[in-house]
């Protein structure tokens, strides 16, 4: 192992420490900003075996996995494990409001009238679509 390689160990770890320091600062700021503006949701996905899966998506905003399934009835299924910190996330199908999620429960939204063509989940605080099946 040559002299320079040995010396480089110190500089390498100073650089690593600096990068990690910046990472901690920025991610802490991001998490703090997220907390004051968004609901605290720790939701877990429950996977069901029946039905044909249409799409599977991990939604980071609400920390959940969403699976759209089509059976005889088309439905969306979301499980929320903690109380939302603010009013509900609204669920739309083909631009028709079909329900909302606002408490600790498992939700089934039956879309058989509208079919699973266009599902949106709206964050009413940010007024932002956080999930949609429309590509």
């Amino acid at each position, binding site marked *: *192992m040559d*002299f320079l*390689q*040995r*010396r480089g*160990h*110190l*500089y*390498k*770890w*100073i650089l*690593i*420490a600096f*990068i*990690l320091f910046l*990472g*901690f600062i*920025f*991610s*802490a*700021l*991001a*998490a703090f*900003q*997220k*907390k004051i503006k968004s609901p*605290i*949701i*720790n939701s*877990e*996905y*429950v*996977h069901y075996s029946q039905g044909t*899966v*249409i*799409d*599977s*998506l*991990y939604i*980071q*905003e609400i*920390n959940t*996995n969403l*699976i759209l399934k089509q059976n005889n009835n088309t439905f969306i299924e979301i499980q929320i*494990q903690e109380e939302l910190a603010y009013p509900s996330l609204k669920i739309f199908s083909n631009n028709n409001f079909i329900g909302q999620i606002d408490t600790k429960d498992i939700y089934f939204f039956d879309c058989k009238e509208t079919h699973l063509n266009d599902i949106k989940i709206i964050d009413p605080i940010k007024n932002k679509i956080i999930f949609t099946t429309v590509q």
Partner: protein
Amino acid sequence: MGVGYKIIDWNSQKKKYDFVILIGIILYLIIFISLHFIFYQNITFETLLIRSTGSLALLMLHIILIIGPLSRFIPQAKILLYNRRHLGVSMFFISAIHGVFSIIQYHGGGNKNPFISLFTSNTDYFSFANFPFMVLGFISLIILFFMAVTSHDFWLNKLSPKVWKKLHQFVYIAYVLLIFHVLLGTLQNEKSILGFIILGIGAIIVCSFHIAAGLKNRKDEKLKFKRERNDQFVFVAKKNDIENNKAKLITFKGISVAVYKKDDNFYAVDNFCKHQGGPLSEGKIIDGCITCPWHGWQYQPEDGKSPPPFEEEVKTYEIKIEGEEVWAKIVK
């Protein structure tokens, strides 16, 4: 000092080491799972598995990274260094369980290939709060995979020590990626700052140890040798200043040499072990051979060669004794 592919040469030390690793893993999982059942009654099995293995793998990586510099300060810690690769491979298996179940849990339910979903479900690379942190975890898992599969000495010889060492230094990149994986992932949704604090303490400890070891290296290599002669001999020490079967390190014009004393005879060899560059000056003479403190590789002090049937060799330097003084001729 393997020259061909052999299964692990189990000895009592390795068995004890692996037993301790196994007990540690089991204890951690029991404590982690118990605490989660107390504080998160609704947690699912899959989430518990993902969290427990992820946190365990990260903890193991911190321990692995601390062992190296720790052994520079506490000689007794060298025993942890000898079979550190066992810890590394175990850590890879734990992190692989975490990775596989995470991919299945979050990307395996749809009609997209899970690996495509991993890279396409979230492409918000310009956001800290919504960064696709899973990709960071995946890349670090790939790095750890290559390190695990090349951890055997067979690959050290096949790839050459230099290439092998460079490959295994990718662990530093994997470490940074994993810290960011946690910072930008699960910690973004945690209610308390406890996670940040714990992770921060871990990172500080690892970085501090490595920086301290780097500073110690610099100090050792900056030793000034005030006495040098025209015949290229430099003063090493007085005969009694070197303990029997131990060495004194001297560095002269960038060349580091370990000067050993064995039964009132003195021998000078290159300081860096041919295996992984371990500091021979910090070893000792065992069974008549200079023994590297990192992994036990040996060299005969008289000629620098490893005892048969091994073929490794370190450079030797001429020694001259003048009265009570030991001098070494250090030339490239």
